[in-house]
């Protein structure tokens, strides 16, 4: 990955996410989510020491013994402040697709993501989407399949909703009033033109476009030290690739 002042894109993403997490919050991360997991561990070791972490796949950070069902019940009660998901496709209205590419009956690719997100995206107070591939096939005008919507229909039980999208190029904020994604910041070393070229919908960028803050030395030291060591216990492959 390209480096900006010594930090990898994965590290810039982790720090951008970590800074959105607050002390005392209950924060859950699903499977196949090493970057959000490292962001949580970083936040817990810096500004959010009393955050309660629920990291699927981790023994140390899974406080339930009644399986995933118990975790779902906990989430539906409104106990999650933050949850993370990714999207094979993410559209301008904050809808995301983790279910199927192409027609549902004759899919080009069938994906596994329906189970959690059809529920958790509705009940977490802030949903943060992350994606390490910022491209026109990911950031599309309209998803092929709505696994979870940016905006829920009237009368539907929804405790929170989409908060932001963090990619390897930029951060989008979700404007709930307008029901659309708006460019929040571009990562160091990335230009607005880069993001425009790789996004298949309008960016609604502010002028000037803010830059995502670089990780501090202290944040990088944690990410490469204690956080990596802990992440290693449940994301060994990711840690191997990053080293």
């Amino acid at each position: 990955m390209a480096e900006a002042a010594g930090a990898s894109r994965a590290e810039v993403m982790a720090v951008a996410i970590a800074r959105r997490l607050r002390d005392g919050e209950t924060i859950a991360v699903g499977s196949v989510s090493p970057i959000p997991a490292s962001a949580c561990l970083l936040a817990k070791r810096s500004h959010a020491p009393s955050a309660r972490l629920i990291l699927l796949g981790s023994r140390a950070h899974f406080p339930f013994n009644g399986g995933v069902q118990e975790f779902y019940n906990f989430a539906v009660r409104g106990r999650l402040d933050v949850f993370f998901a990714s999207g094979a496709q993410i559209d301008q209205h904050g809808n995301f697709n983790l279910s199927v590419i192409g027609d549902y009956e004759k899919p080009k690719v069938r994906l596994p993501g329906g189970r959690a997100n059809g529920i958790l995206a509705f009940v977490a107070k802030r949903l943060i989407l992350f994606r390490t591939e910022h491209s026109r096939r990911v950031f599309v005008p309209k998803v092929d399949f709505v696994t979870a919507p940016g905006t829920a229909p009237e009368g539907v039980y929804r405790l929170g909703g989409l908060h932001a999208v963090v990619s390897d190029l930029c951060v989008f904020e979700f404007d709930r009033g307008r029901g659309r994604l708006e460019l929040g910041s571009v990562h160091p070393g990335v230009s607005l033109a880069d993001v425009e070229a790789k996004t298949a919908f309008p960016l609604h960028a502010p002028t000037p476009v803010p830059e995502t803050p670089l990780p501090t030395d202290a944040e990088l030291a944690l990410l490469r030290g204690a956080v990596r060591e802990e992440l290693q216990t449940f994301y060994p492959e990711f840690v191997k690739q990053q080293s």
Partner: protein
Amino acid sequence: MNVPFVPVRGLLGTDYMRVRPDFKAVPNPYDPREEIALVPAVAPDVAVFHGWKGDRHGNVVTSGALDAKLIAQASRRTVATVEEIVDGDLTQAPHLGVLVPGIHVSAVVHAPRGAHPTSCEGRYAVDDAHVREYIEAAQDDDTFAKWLDRYVYGVPDHAGYLERVGLAGGAR
């Protein structure tokens, strides 16, 4: 559990409601201002899960991170594979993890390393190399057929499988 359906908070506004006509949107009977989704209960004929220990009464102790106790109650028959068979009665012994009482279990099979290539919490980790091999093989029908021949049809039993993947004797 044999309930006919389960109310779900979520799903409304997703395309699951479009492709699954058996998912229904109804007013919550106890609070009609709320629209709520109903989904039919899944009732498997057979469930299989892997546990740490089993006894001769069918009691099984497994990781609390799994939904074994739930699927054991939802299925018509439940088969538990376990790392070890122990003497005595697990319901009478203190234990870590979750006890799935034998009344929910149809059969217990002694299968050390039975979760391979996935992990068994506290016992062994995921076999990443084997999972990678599987992912590569699963890319097309030809290579997948070869994978099946090598690891499924081409071995006489579980011990033969363990030997093939280099874990003969159920080594830890």
